[in-house]
């Protein structure tokens, strides 16, 4: 970031527990819990916050203008409140731009989704073109399965290579108190779990999940008054690719583009050596390998994974939280990656802490087969 742009920092984060169904809480109650915790942790009063960016989606909430369900609990009244109907990491980019403009010293960023309240198949079917594709009954899982096959074919990957991602992430998730699904699964366990759409097995797909997360962005000078340990956003990039049937599905070109923008802004030349920990929005196991390649973290991610380099304690831990495979709803997925990266850079990650992490990467994705991609690079002082 150069010129007169204000530096953006994160001064606090909060996340709810993630569960298959949080039936006892309405959406506004769930979001209130996470915002209240964030304010409590940072000591910032809602009266000081004039800028709010939320992420939620009308189809998932079953209500248009879904941001209005949570208007009071995010302090929206008569403030600069805006909603992003996309992955939560997009809300962070929007919020960061507000800080960079110099117009706001604080911005609250919140994402929520309760997948349990709607009908995931029917809702994700709405993503597809109604003229040529939607009537065939496609949904998120089916499209992912088609992409997975294409990617595996291009790279010569075996089912075991993909399953290894799920094994590693579920093991990591055992150390993350917010994770919804965790365990010591073997590759055989993963490949024996029910098949959703070949080649994707249940343990290779994000489970149905409810939850929310929030974080507080601040200008550098404001950050100094809130915390002794601000984490700075040193790079940001996003990119949108062609529609899923119009592009090479086995390559994550938009992610390559988003990453190169973020790295350029951050001054990162050799990401595989300069990134200490990465939180990747892999809602399906194969996506983690695709993303590692596109992010320039590895040319042969399956080998890196097999060597144990992606484990907590390895050379470049990937998804020490367990990632979305262990339970984060859509929309929240990308933003909670930043929450986790922040915990890593402030030594607050507890049992899944990556020791000595200075620079972290958080990735978000949305659309059919990751049509839209975003990357944020964070650094501690």
């Amino acid at each position, binding site marked *: 970031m150069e010129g007169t742009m204000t530096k953006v920092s994160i001064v606090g984060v909060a996340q709810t527990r993630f569960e298959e169904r949080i039936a*006892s809480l309405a959406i506004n*109650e769930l979001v209130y819990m996470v915002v209240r915790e964030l304010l409590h942790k940072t000591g910032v009063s809602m009266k000081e916050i004039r800028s709010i960016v939320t992420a939620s989606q009308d189809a998932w909430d079953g209500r248009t203008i879904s941001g209005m369900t949570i208007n009071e*609990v995010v302090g929206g009244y008569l403030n600069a409140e805006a909603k992003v109907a996309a992955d939560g990491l997009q809300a962070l980019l929007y919020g960061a731009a507000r800080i960079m403009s110099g117009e706001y010293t604080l911005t609250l960023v919140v994402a929520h989704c309760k997948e349990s309240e*709607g*009908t995931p198949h029917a809702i994700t079917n709405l993503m597809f073109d109604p003229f040529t594709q939607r*009537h065939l009954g496609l949904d998120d899982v089916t499209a992912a399965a088609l992409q997975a096959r294409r990617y595996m074919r291009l790279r010569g990957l075996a089912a075991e290579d993909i399953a290894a991602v799920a094994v590693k992430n579920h093991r990591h998730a055992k150390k993350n108190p917010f994770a919804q699904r965790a365990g010591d699964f073997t590759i055989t366990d993963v490949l024996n779990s029910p098949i959703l759409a070949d080649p994707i097995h249940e343990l290779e797909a994000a489970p149905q999940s409810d939850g929310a997360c929030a974080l507080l962005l601040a200008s550098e000078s404001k950050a100094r008054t809130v915390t002794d340990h601000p984490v700075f956003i040193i790079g940001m990039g996003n990119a949108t690719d062609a529609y899923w049937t119009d592009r090479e599905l086995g390559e994550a070109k938009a992610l390559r583009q988003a990453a190169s923008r973020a790295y350029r802004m951050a001054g990162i030349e050799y990401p595989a050596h300069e990134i200490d920990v990465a939180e990747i929005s892999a809602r399906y196991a194969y996506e983690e390998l695709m993303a590692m390649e596109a992010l320039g973290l590895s040319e042969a991610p399956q080998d890196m994974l097999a060597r144990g380099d992606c484990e907590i304690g390895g050379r470049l831990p990937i998804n020490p939280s367990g990632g979305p495979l262990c339970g984060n709803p859509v929309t929240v997925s990308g933003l909670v990656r930043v929450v986790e990266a922040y915990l890593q850079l402030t030594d607050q990650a507890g049992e899944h802490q990556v020791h000595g992490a200075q620079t972290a990467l958080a990735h978000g994705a949305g659309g059919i087969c990751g049509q839209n991609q975003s990357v944020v690079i964070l650094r501690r002082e």
Partner: protein
Amino acid sequence: MTKKDDETQRVQYLLDIEYHYAAGELATRFFTELKEAGRIMGMRCSGCHRVYLPPRPVCGICYKELKDWVPLSDEGIIVGCTVVHLPFIDPMTGEQRPVPYGFAIIRLDGASTSIYHFVDETDEKKLRVGQRVKAVFREPRTGSLHHDIKYFRLVGK
């Protein structure tokens, strides 16, 4: 683009998505009071003393957490009203709702915010802002605002 509307095609798609909205702790208490005691409850802000209906976690103005429940009157005043002449399918019955009918925003006595309901009056001269109204309950009550209150009726000053 030079084609006329009837020279181009349209594609039909029927949306059928089932939702189960979690009412949460506050609305559950609100509905339970309504069902069991026939009582409409609001929540008072300890900061600005506004009384919110329906209940919610915080005061949108003070950002104070709402904790105090207060019973409200089943009478109130019309804040805004209209007589609707446009027919639509009633979501409660699946039938077309007969027109005309009265709609009003109603501020119950003791509340700082309003609710919205039917009024059994279609004469624009009588259905007017500032007119007092009273809730007409439907028995047996099920614990929902749109079901348990059939409509509001006009009451004399």
